[in-house]
């Protein structure tokens, strides 16, 4: 049913339709509305049977999900940012144990400096945790990906993270088609666990494994992820047949088949990128884009084939591998290895800095003219940076950069100098 609805609520309704049996809740902005809505839905009996557990930390949230999943229940939780890092140890554990937990990430930057706004540093910091990572472009896709995520997780016995841009998607009201229960039931069968804690058939889960088999266990984790590369397009196809809507998959090329410049990105920024692509196409610029929906496992082949005819590649990413550059760009570079194409890394939108059409337009034009640097920071305020660098180099005790910059901008405590 079409609804004018907040992204978080749409996600909550999608989760409800997936019949989760245990939901763990711990608040962190911008994920809060998701678990709040789910709490209400459980209270009203809209999700039944379901245990909704208010835990004392994200570490506990993932741990409760681990126990529930190992005992055969469909388990779900949601988090963001500091919360995801706080549960990191259990995040790795869930995948190591092969537990098909589904978790929504309301993507948000990681402090310090503390910042609640959107970027992808949080989920990307977990890129090697053995979870499948899907990135939603729109709220419709956020809904659709969650339904696919449970099926994917349970078919492979691998946990799945659905990454939804904080605020930009989670707090946006837009028209979303919320599927009917019967449709979801037809697509997503009840959870039939690969392993289960059951007194009728006792198993030991989580044994200590030494050098004689550990690498084999890790290989199998890799193998499962590789299986996902085949399964994800199949599930997306089945989804289209069931729901009549194209959603998910590995990558989504846009006007890129004949493009010289292809812009690669994850998540909601693809909307803005496509607008700019359209605009520039009208002006005769040969440009297209590629949205990566499945980031882990990384669809290297699909990315390579989508990029093989481009003359240059621009990766616009909302994360930073400090000391090297882009995280996603590194993956893209590996995908096009040997094709001898310049891959430009553009670090953009960190901590919620708006990525405007105007900035992108200038950026892409530069790229088209062949003037784009190898690594650059979109809309970086150079004067602020230079001032702070001078301060750091001039004064041994120059103090915290973030506070200095704010003071420099006259935003806080400018009088206490």
């Amino acid at each position: 049913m079409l609804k004018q609805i907040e992204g978080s609520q749409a996600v909550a309704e999608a989760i409800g339709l997936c019949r989760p049996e245990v939901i763990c809740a711990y608040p962190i902005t911008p994920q809060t509305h998701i678990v709040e809505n789910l709490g209400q839905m459980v209270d009203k009996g809209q999700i039944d049977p379901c245990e909704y557990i208010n835990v004392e930390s994200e570490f506990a949230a993932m741990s409760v999900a681990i126990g529930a999943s190992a005992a055969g229940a469909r388990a779900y939780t949601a988090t963001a940012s500091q919360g995801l890092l706080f549960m990191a140890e259990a995040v790795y554990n869930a995948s190591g144990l092969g537990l098909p937990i589904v978790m929504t990430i309301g993507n948000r930057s990681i402090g310090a400096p503390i910042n609640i706004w959107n970027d992808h540093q949080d989920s990307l910091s977990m890129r090697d945790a053995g979870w499948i990572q899907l990135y939603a472009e729109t709220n419709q896709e956020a809904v659709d990906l969650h339904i696919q995520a449970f099926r994917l997780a349970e078919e492979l016995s691998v946990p799945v993270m659905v990454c939804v841009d904080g605020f930009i998607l989670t707090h946006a009201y837009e028209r979303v088609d919320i599927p009917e229960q019967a449709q979801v039931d037809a697509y997503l069968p009840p959870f039939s666990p690969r392993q289960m804690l059951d007194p009728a058939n006792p198993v030991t889960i989580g044994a200590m494994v030494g050098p004689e088999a550990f690498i084999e266990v890790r290989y199998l984790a890799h193998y499962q992820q590789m299986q996902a590369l085949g399964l994800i397009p199949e599930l997306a196809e089945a989804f289209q047949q069931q729901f009549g809507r194209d959603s998910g998959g590995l990558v989504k090329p846009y006007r890129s088949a004949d493009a010289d410049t292809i812009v690669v990105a994850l998540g909601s920024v693809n909307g803005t990128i496509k607008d700019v692509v359209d605009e520039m196409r009208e002006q005769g610029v040969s440009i297209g884009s590629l949205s990566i929906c499945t980031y882990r496992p990384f669809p290297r082949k699909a990315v390579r084939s989508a990029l093989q005819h481009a003359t240059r590649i621009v990766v616009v990413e909302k994360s930073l591998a400090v000391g090297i550059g882009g995280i996603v760009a590194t993956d893209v570079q590996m995908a096009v290895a040997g094709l001898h194409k310049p891959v430009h890394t553009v670090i953009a939108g960190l901590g919620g800095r708006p990525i405007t059409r105007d900035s992108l337009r200038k950026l892409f034009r530069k790229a088209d003219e062949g003037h784009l640097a190898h690594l650059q920071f979109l809309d970086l305020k150079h004067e602020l940076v230079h001032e702070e660098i001078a301060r750091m180099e001039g004064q041994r005790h120059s103090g915290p950069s973030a506070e200095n910059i704010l003071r420099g901008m006259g935003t806080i405590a400018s009088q206490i100098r």
Partner: protein
Amino acid sequence: METTIKFYQTDTFTVGNRLLSEAERSVQAGMQRTNALNSGHRACQGCGEALGARFAVDAAMRATNNQLVACNATGCLEVFSTPYPESSWQLPWLHSLFGNAAAVATGVAAAMKVKGKQHIRVLAQGGDGGTTDIGFGCLSGMFERNDDVLYICYDNEAYMNTGVQRSSATPPAARTATTMPVGQHANGNVFGKGKSVPLIAMAHEIPYVATASVADLRDLEAKVTKAMSIHGARYIHIHVPCPLGWGADPSHTIKLARLAIESGLFPVFEAEHGEITGHRAIRAQVPVEDYLKLQKRFAHLFRNPKQVDVIAHLQAMADRNIRRFKLLEKSTPPTGGAAA
């Protein structure tokens, strides 16, 4: 020549078990024994934790008619019982991490509830490090929500699995790998108030809290059995000597456990909904020295010159326990003896 049999401390059932009626005895061997934790595991000789876990889990298995799932924290118990490809566990068993056994158990209990399998009960277990330190947040959360889980802490008073480092359950003055009796730690572990998780558990007003010891397996079994008759969050703290970490003779495990009780250093009591409801009396208080002397972790206290003041301090702790838990008054265990 006439042999005299001395029934020393029959009250502890260490000798007296066979004098009890059949129904009241601890089952230490026998074909019918549930044996949750199989022999052949890799615990050290004389490991109190292995003994405590076997009796506790077996008792829980019996009490639930084998409808039991165990969650384990990282630590000696997990490592010695599940070296791949072997497992000593005869029940569904899950190990996730060092600090999350309580929360994982919450998840299992939630799954059982949602699946309508509430007859399957859940046990969480960990060492004192996993319980009193790193897993403390999850444990408190589990208590606060009153989740239907019995949590058992096997207290060997240090992080044994990583090579005997101090935990917040390590007694003052003890030598550990991180509190060597040299330099600023001239007397071993520093003196502090210590962290009593049983008392903190009581402050959560959960239905059942108890302490127990491998010195008194009958009492231990009775408490586990009682705990399994109750729903909601329950906590049992079991004192389990560790020959390796304590520097003690493996044949002294039970003796040490008994001396810890009889000196007053380890008070054995029960509480329900935040109120103490029973304690196990000690017959005649033994000086703490008798207990300390048998362990290398306290050897520095007895070197020349003997650390009289430190020993007096430990004695004062024991005396305080005796007053606080009324340990010299007649036992009032609701579960002891034939109860439960």
